[in-house]
């Protein structure tokens, strides 16, 4: 294989958001160690300023429709990539704002925290642009390295260390699966770029290879049966890191999953639909049932996150352009509701130093604002109208109905009812139970910004979803040739049982 490496200024323009962030994270790191007297809060606001610049740059790309590929098609900038980058950068901004109070509790490396968050965000931005299997591997590893450190950031806390170790060992194992899968796919096809791989024959090596890659990405998104790291890691990690981990990498991994299933494997849809339906049913059911038994709010949100991923997989199983739209829209609603809920957990945790659901008793008396915000976020996660989660679930079910996945929809609806129970248990504790300590709680300005952003997003997407729908529909235009129910693809007999 020969590459002709020609880069011009116009090509480098495609890399501008990543280059900006690279320079900026170097600036943040340098400011931290070169000016040790600088209050660490300033670093947070400095990071947010840089991310806002990157965000503006991405919005410009989106509006001007700037796109193309770089480095022998390894790196692609299209509407889909830009959507996911905006998603990731937006999440990062909110997470950093939500971290400001929490970071004061760290005894070591307060400044490096922001650097590591920015570095993970950079890795995930590259993930959103990964267009061949090699760049998938490199960018996935790049984005995970920062998280390995961040999860174990509370050095004196046994739970945090355990969380880091579990995440690291299982993450390395998943990376091994990914590399093995990539080598099999490359061995069978001799190609790495997603659009080149679309192979006409499903050889056993190709099937096993893609199954391994799916397993590695399934680990990343925490779909059952690759979810075992989620509860302990989410529980032990510092809460802002948990919030970050529960949203941004999911978006980045779905960017890769969408490209893989919709571009490379479009011809094999009858086979992978069953795989995804299975993963989706297992994730929803397992996540929701186990969540009922949780006493810790972080673990509850961890299991609810597994169930939410099951919901998003419905859109992937639909395998149509509308399914892709629904995934993107659902991720947006999940971003605002889940990040909002975690922001409340961070705020309450900072004030009362506890994440037990028991300690949310009578939160309404102590801070009506926090209790109301939590109510909105939990109801949105459960899918109650008129909140964002309702539209997200509706969208994803509609995409599935078009494809006739009725079993999946039935299971999804039953799961909504189950999830309603444990979300409402928290609501009941906040509103009806008596507080043990009725002293009022107040939250800091940056935290308020995050909670207001979550509320605004959740209400706006729920009441007036049209602009966001237009946006996600435009982001997936390249998949409009994916056929609907009467698929033009030939029916294939595949050597896998499912």
């Amino acid at each position, binding site marked *: 294989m020969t590459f002709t*490496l020609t*880069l011009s200024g116009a090509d480098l323009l495609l890399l501008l958001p990543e280059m900006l962030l*690279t320079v900026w994270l*170097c600036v943040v*790191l*340098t400011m931290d*160690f*070169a000016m040790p007297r600088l209050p660490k809060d300033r670093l947070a606001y400095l990071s947010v300023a840089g991310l806002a610049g990157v965000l503006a740059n991405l919005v410009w790309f989106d509006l001007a429709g700037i796109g193309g590929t770089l480095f022998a098609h390894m790196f692609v900038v299209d509407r889909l990539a830009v959507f996911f980058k905006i998603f990731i950068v937006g999440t990062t901004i909110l997470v950093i704002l939500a971290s400001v109070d929490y970071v004061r509790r760290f005894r070591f490396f307060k400044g490096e925290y922001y650097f590591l968050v920015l570095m993970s965000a950079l890795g995930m931005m590259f993930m959103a642009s990964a267009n061949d299997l090699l760049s998938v591997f490199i960018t996935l590893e790049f984005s995970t390295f920062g998280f390995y450190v961040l999860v174990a950031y509370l050095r004196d806390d046994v739970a945090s260390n355990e969380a880091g170790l579990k995440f690291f060992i299982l993450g390395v194992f998943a990376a091994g699966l990914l590399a093995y899968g990539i080598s099999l796919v490359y061995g069978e096809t*001799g190609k790495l770029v997603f659009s080149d791989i679309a192979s006409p024959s499903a050889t056993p090596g190709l099937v096993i290879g893609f199954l391994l890659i799916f397993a590695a990405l399934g680990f990343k998104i925490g779909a059952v049966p690759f979810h075992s790291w989620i509860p302990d890691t989410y529980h032990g990690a510092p809460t802002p890191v948990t919030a970050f981990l529960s949203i941004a990498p999911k978006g980045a991994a779905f960017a890769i999953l969408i490209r893989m299933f919709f571009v490379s494997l479009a011809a094999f849809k009858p086979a992978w639909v069953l795989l995804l339906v299975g993963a989706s049913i297992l994730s929803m059911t397992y996540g929701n049932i186990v969540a009922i038994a949780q006493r810790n709010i972080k673990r509850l949100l961890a299991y609810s996150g597994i169930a939410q991923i099951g919901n998003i997989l419905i859109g992937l199983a639909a395998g149509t352009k509308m399914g892709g739209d629904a995934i993107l829209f659902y991720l947006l609603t999940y971003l605002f509701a889940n990040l909002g809920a975690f922001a409340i957990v961070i705020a309450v945790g900072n004030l009362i130093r506890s994440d037990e659901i028991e300690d949310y008793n009578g939160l309404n008396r102590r801070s009506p604002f926090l209790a109301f915000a939590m109510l909105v976020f939990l109801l949105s996660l459960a899918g109650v109208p008129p909140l964002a989660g309702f539209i997200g679930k509706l969208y994803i079910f509609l995409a599935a109905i078009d494809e006739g996945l009725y079993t999946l929809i039935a299971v999804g609806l039953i799961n909504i009812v189950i999830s309603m129970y444990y979300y409402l248990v928290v609501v009941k504790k906040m509103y009806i139970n008596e507080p043990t300590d009725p002293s009022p709680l107040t939250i800091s300005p940056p935290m308020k910004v995050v909670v207001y952003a979550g509320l605004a997003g959740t209400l706006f997407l729920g009441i007036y979803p049209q602009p966001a729908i237009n946006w996600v529909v435009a982001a997936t235009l390249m998949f409009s040739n994916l056929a609907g129910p009467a698929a033009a693809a030939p029916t294939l007999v595949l050597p896998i049982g499912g």
Partner: protein
Amino acid sequence: MSNEAVPLNYVPILVFLVVAVGFGLVTLLAGRVLRPSRPYKAKLKAYESGSPLFSDARLQFPIRYYIIAMLFVIFDVEIVFMFPWAVEFRKLGLLGLLEMGFFIGILLVGFWYAWKKGALEWD
């Protein structure tokens, strides 16, 4: 590439595997059959004819060795990236030079960080 059920290109690997496994098995079996069996206690020691063991190998040692080794690896890998660039230096031109500057700049920030944090101080 052949489209047969058995990929012929991989046959040498199979042969190699068989030879590798067979070599180990034959050597061990031949030794077992040929050698006289005379077990005694000294044979079970880790170093049969060396000095006796005096402590556990899993002891604490200064972590700075680790840091120095890490820093070394980073700059070692940097050289790996610089070689191809140096070979194609003329062809890559000014843009190549700028990109290498960017790359080294990022590494230098990391090095400066390590320096400031005292990673290079021996005491």
